[in-house]
């Protein structure tokens, strides 16, 4: 009974993972990301005693950007590609429900992004080990792993956004919607500040309502800045951040399943 629920999800996840990792574009992105990270050695040599810090910062930024690009483009093509190839006809004439399809697709991409972030993280650590004359990896490994985990968490959210939009929109529109909401998410706090500054109660209510409807990724930024200074963020902040991001992911995937459930495949 459990296997009839779980097996289709796993099968769709593995199929999605295979499809993404067998796409040559992914490797092009990977080589590009590694090349830019290597450029950090050159930039580092221009600084005075901060070369490792610069490689670290550049490497993590590249991982976040390339991971983001892969998440947005792979996520927004999720349902569209199945429709275009007409493979959706084969899936939805099998006992597969909408939520199993969406969850499987999402998990497949999560596996792929995990591998990408892990591979680029290992490359970055290797580069730092090579450049650091003392080869004291223990000084860097903790902060880099924490930063990578943060990047991965943010990408999980971006993937859920892209998955949601892919269920009812064309890939181009989905990319625009996903990037917009991702960007707005980082400015969420400003909406709240603006509502406090406004003297018009209607504007205040509108801005507050907008703030509650839109995602707020400010916590991620705050934790990132704490990590940047080599400090540890408090446990409450981490728990709140995880709960917030995962609640949003469940909400978006639930909504995506509902939208997909109502769809027809003519």
């Amino acid at each position, binding site marked *: 009974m459990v296997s009839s629920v779980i097996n*289709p999800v796993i099968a769709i996840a593995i199929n999605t993972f*295979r499809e993404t990792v067998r796409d040559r574009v992914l490797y092009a992105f990977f080589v590009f990301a590694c090349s830019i990270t290597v450029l950090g050695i050159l930039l580092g040599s221009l600084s005075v005693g901060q070369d490792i810090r610069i490689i670290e910062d550049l490497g993590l930024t590249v991982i976040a950007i390339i991971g983001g690009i892969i998440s947005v483009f792979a996520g927004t093509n999720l349902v569209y590609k199945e429709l275009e190839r007409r493979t959706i006809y084969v899936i939805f*004439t099998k006992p597969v429900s909408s939520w199993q399809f969406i969850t499987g697709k999402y998990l497949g991409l999560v596996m792929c992004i995990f591998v990408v972030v892990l591979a680029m993280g290992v490359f970055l650590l290797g580069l730092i080990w090579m450049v650091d004359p003392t080869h004291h990896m223990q000084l860097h490994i903790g902060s880099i792993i924490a930063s990578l985990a943060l990047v991965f968490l943010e990408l999980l959210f971006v993937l859920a956004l892209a998955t949601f939009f892919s269920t009812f929109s064309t890939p181009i529109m989905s990319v625009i919607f996903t990037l917009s909401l991702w960007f707005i998410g980082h400015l969420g706090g400003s909406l709240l500040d603006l509502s406090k500054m406004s003297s018009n109660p209607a504007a205040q209510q509108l801005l507050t309502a907008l703030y509650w409807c839109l995602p707020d990724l400010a916590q991620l930024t705050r934790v990132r800045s704490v990590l940047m200074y080599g400090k540890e963020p408090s446990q409450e902040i981490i728990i709140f951040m995880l709960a917030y991001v995962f609640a949003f992911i469940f909400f978006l995937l639930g909504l995506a399943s509902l939208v997909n459930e109502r769809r027809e*495949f003519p």
Partner: protein
Amino acid sequence: MDTVQQPKEHIDVTGVNVIEARGLKKDRVSSFLLKRSPILDDLSLTVREGETYGLLGPNGAGKTTTVKILVGLIKPDSGDALVLGQKAGEPEALKQIGFLPENPYFYSHLTGYEFLEFIGQLFALKKKELKERMAELLELVGMTADANQPMRKYSKGMLQRLGIAQSLINNPKVIFWDEPMSGLDPIGRRDVRKILERLKSEGKTIFFNSHLLPDVSDVCDRVGVLVKGKLVAEDSIKDIERGGGYKDLEEYFLTKVGG
């Protein structure tokens, strides 16, 4: 011969009805002016257990729409579609049917073997059972030697064969094939005909659309003719060939569609 303008009752009291469509209506809605034009207009038909039913009709008659409603890919605007007593598209019905879409194209990143495995996993088949079933089906469709090739290297005929194999992975009671012989060479058509005959001998209920009338005439028990979304005629092949006054199925078809 029994020609009907809009058949309302085809239920054979002695047989079990496996596929039932009652008063199906479906409109196409234009995206700009939201203008509605009918694709299916009060379509009713019944297929009994173990019967092979061929739905014939010119292009745009609504054959593919009918099959898509029966497998749950689209919902009718009104009317009921039942498969094995369940509403079309319900999980219990889907577990017992096999579907081959028209011009199937599958995943270019998978090998034929991986694709069949994927489809089997969607039915939550056990590993051992799935392996045996895959070997059996690859043999049936003559794809054993090419199963480990990536699907992007497959010809249209090979994709069609693999599509047939995937539609049978769950050993379905009811089979829906949409144009199973389109694009196949004479050898491919003969092979599909043989597979159909074997499935028929196993007592499967088969519903398929086709333009290739000689093939339909060879394997079907009964045919329905769909024109502009309406079922204009429905007869058994025996009646058409023996007492219908038609030379063959082609003459029957052309008479019914007014061609």
